[in-house]
């Protein structure tokens, strides 16, 4: 299974947001469905960093590997600067927050999403420094973390390279510009796809400080916050996010996208249905 077929991604780049609806959240199963019966505590992805990850993110909280949280990512990412990942945790019911991280990235944590009034399904693109498990951990109301994930093979170097944008003046003119569109009837309701102009520098490339989007909020026309997200350095340059929102969410007026980067530059955009 190749959820993010190279050819398809080329088409996406050419058509921009118009192809957003065409990029599906393919049901997970490549790794987890094939996973053997587990020993308690054993990592189905068999990562030597798992113990570190558990300590860093979950401490003493209960953790389960759970195939109800689907992580879809390419088997092999030919562009380590833009690895598309889709997460669907809706099968778990109410989810408080979802963490996305990659065990072998120099900066492990990529995204934290709180689906406050939205289905727990979203997509992002991230940078991978080397082949790594890409995991999503969803915390349910009882405090339990449910883990899904997939190995992504890559040639690497994604996090320590200067952003492409840092070589051009474009980001300086268009910083935090948002392109977005709401796709009714896609995913678990309506799907919001958005792209923000931002270099998302990791701070690991020589001479370029960390510069990344920190917070993102999506609110409906009545001002109710639907999704709150916290982004970290590994999210791709000019990040593209998808968020599944309740069906008919655009009826109450334009959606509002607000956020901020770690330098305090504001993001503020409206999406008219």
């Amino acid at each position, binding site marked *: 299974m190749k959820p993010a077929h190279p050819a398809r991604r080329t088409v996406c780049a050419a058509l921009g947001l118009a192809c957003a609806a065409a990029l599906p959240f393919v049901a997970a199963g490549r790794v987890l469905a094939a996973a053997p019966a587990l020993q308690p505590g054993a990592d189905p992805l068999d990562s030597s960093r798992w113990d570190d990850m558990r300590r860093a993110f979950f401490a003493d909280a*209960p953790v389960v590997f759970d195939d109800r949280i689907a992580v879809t990512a390419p088997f092999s990412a030919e562009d380590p600067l833009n690895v598309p990942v889709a997460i669907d945790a809706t099968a778990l019911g109410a989810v408080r927050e979802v963490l996305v991280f990659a065990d072998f990235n120099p900066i492990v944590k990529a995204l934290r999403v709180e689906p406050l009034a939205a289905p727990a399904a979203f997509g992002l693109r991230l940078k991978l420094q080397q082949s790594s498990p890409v995991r999503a951990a969803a915390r349910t109301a009882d405090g339990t973390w449910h883990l899904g994930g997939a190995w992504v093979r890559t040639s690497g170097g994604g996090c320590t390279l200067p952003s492409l944008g840092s070589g051009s*003046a474009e980001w300086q003119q268009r910083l935090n510009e948002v392109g977005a569109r709401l796709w009714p009837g896609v995913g678990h309701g309506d799907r919001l796809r958005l792209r923000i102009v931002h270099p998302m*520098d990791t701070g690991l490339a020589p001479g370029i400080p960390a510069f990344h989007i920190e917070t993102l909020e999506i609110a409906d026309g009545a001002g109710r916050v639907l999704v709150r997200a916290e982004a970290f350095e590994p999210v791709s340059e000019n990040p593209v996010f998808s968020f599944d929102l309740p069906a008919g969410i655009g009826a109450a007026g334009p959606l509002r996208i607000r956020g901020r980067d770690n*330098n*305090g530059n504001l993001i503020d955009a409206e999406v008219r249905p």
Partner: protein
Amino acid sequence: MHTPLRSARRPRLLASFAATAFALAALNAQAKGVSDDDIVNDATITTQVVTHGLGTKGQRYSPLDQVNIETVKNLVPVWSFSFGGEKQRGQQSQPLIHDGKMYVTASYSRIFALDATTGQKLWKYEHRLPDGIMPCCDVINRGAALYDDLVIFGTLDAQLVALNKDTGKVVWRQKIEDYKAGYSFTAAPQIVKGMVITGNSGGEFGIVGRVDARDAKTGKLIWTRPTVEGHMGYTYDAEGKPVDNGISGTTNATWPGDLWKTGGAAPWQAAYYDPDVDLIYIGTGNPAPWNSWLRPGDNLYSSSTIAIDPDTGKIVWHYQSTPHDGWDFDGVNEFISFEYNDPATGKLVKAGGKADRNGFFFVNDRTDGKLLNAFPFVNRIDWAKGIDLKTGRPIYDEEKRPGNPFAEGVGEDKKGKVVFNAPSFLGGKNQMPMAFSPKTGYFYVPANEWGMDIWNEPISYKRGAAYLGAGFTIKPLHEDFIGAMRAVDPVSGKIVWEVKNNAPLWGGVMTTGGDLVFYGTPEGYLKAIDARNGKELWQFQTGSGVIAPPVTWEQDGEQYVAVVSGWGGAVPLWGGDVAKRVNMLEQGGSVWVFKLHKS
């Protein structure tokens, strides 16, 4: 498939929550905010340095005397911290100290929080700069301001960033102006009555100088005051909408045509504040362009000291030290509040002192700006024969103004007559702040002796491009020195003592109750001098040139001294023939901290 992990340990969760909550409460109690009282009393609270200038008056005097003329020989380094990276350019920051922590800015718009006793790094914020920034004089920064739980500093792309002082996370950020039009920011902000006061930089690009007051907690504008005559000042209502607050001066009174629209006069240094007379003092830069033939008139409020009422944002008085400047004599240097007894009447005078770029030391009444005294603090001044104490105006030598490039017979290259003038455009004193000791009554002035060849050329304004209309080259006046640390008596107008320095002095000065004067040299030394007689008592080699002002504070019964080291700034970029005296100096980027050795 659900595979619980460590479920047997769940009871520990509660215990660990409780422990965390307790630790957080302890942390909150520990992290003190900086109050208005802390700020206005900073000059006398010896356990902190929370303002630029060791007090908002900017005297740079500390009453501490544990380190003194007897004990200074035992001053040894405690720690040193490297700013790291490949960004070792000029370091001009004055550190701030509060609650056992040091806040110090570095080149390329970086700021660090360090443990003040160990030098351990607590956090760093590195501002992402666009490629198109246009600082005239190196990628420096002169320091931060502290207020409540915020540490606030300006960036080279003309932004103001407020960070939580305990976490280093951005709390608010405001744009001062558009860097693409030539604006930048390098000064330390100053806190006055809960407002953060800033100027701007970019006088070489035809920007419009301006002083802004913002709510320090939110960054919202309260008032803004242009420093070029003709521009409207504003206050801001609750929605942030500008409300007219009167034009600065009278349009076209001292500027011809449209020249005031790109008039420069950038107040690119820190503002100072005297709570006693409740006035903000800030100096303004050169008028733009440098070519003075294009702008007949005094060109207010360029090259001036201006006093602003913090409550109204209006100019209360101004004193222009170089009317119709033609030599790049910015009037930005600090106007330091001090008192003296008038020798004739014995009356206490509320004065202010300023060592100007133009080579004269000015003493003004700080309540109304009236000129009280003016005398040279450098050996040679060509452009003026003196300052008329009655009119307050310079007595120009018109032969020393660069020739008119538009005059008949100039020739096709339109290059006006070249003149030699002292001081040079880098000034008898530049950005490095002087100090005043209420104990000796002297100002300690880091002076430089140099001249320049200067000529004028035609120029027209182009947004974001250099706007000079002049050419120049600097020449030292003496073989054995350019820099001279001078003790200046503001009442008698006499230079009491001097310590010569081969390279130009570019760091600031601090003086203490221990009768010491501390300053750094481009050659890398931090020096301690006897404040009374100029005797050199102590020095330490910091490994790179010092172009930043030292500070001192007391912690756990011990007096600490700190200075930032890192060669750069305007001299190596603009230094002409001076380059020979400085081109062997190596770059760096570190902060050094000293205290007395206990045997």
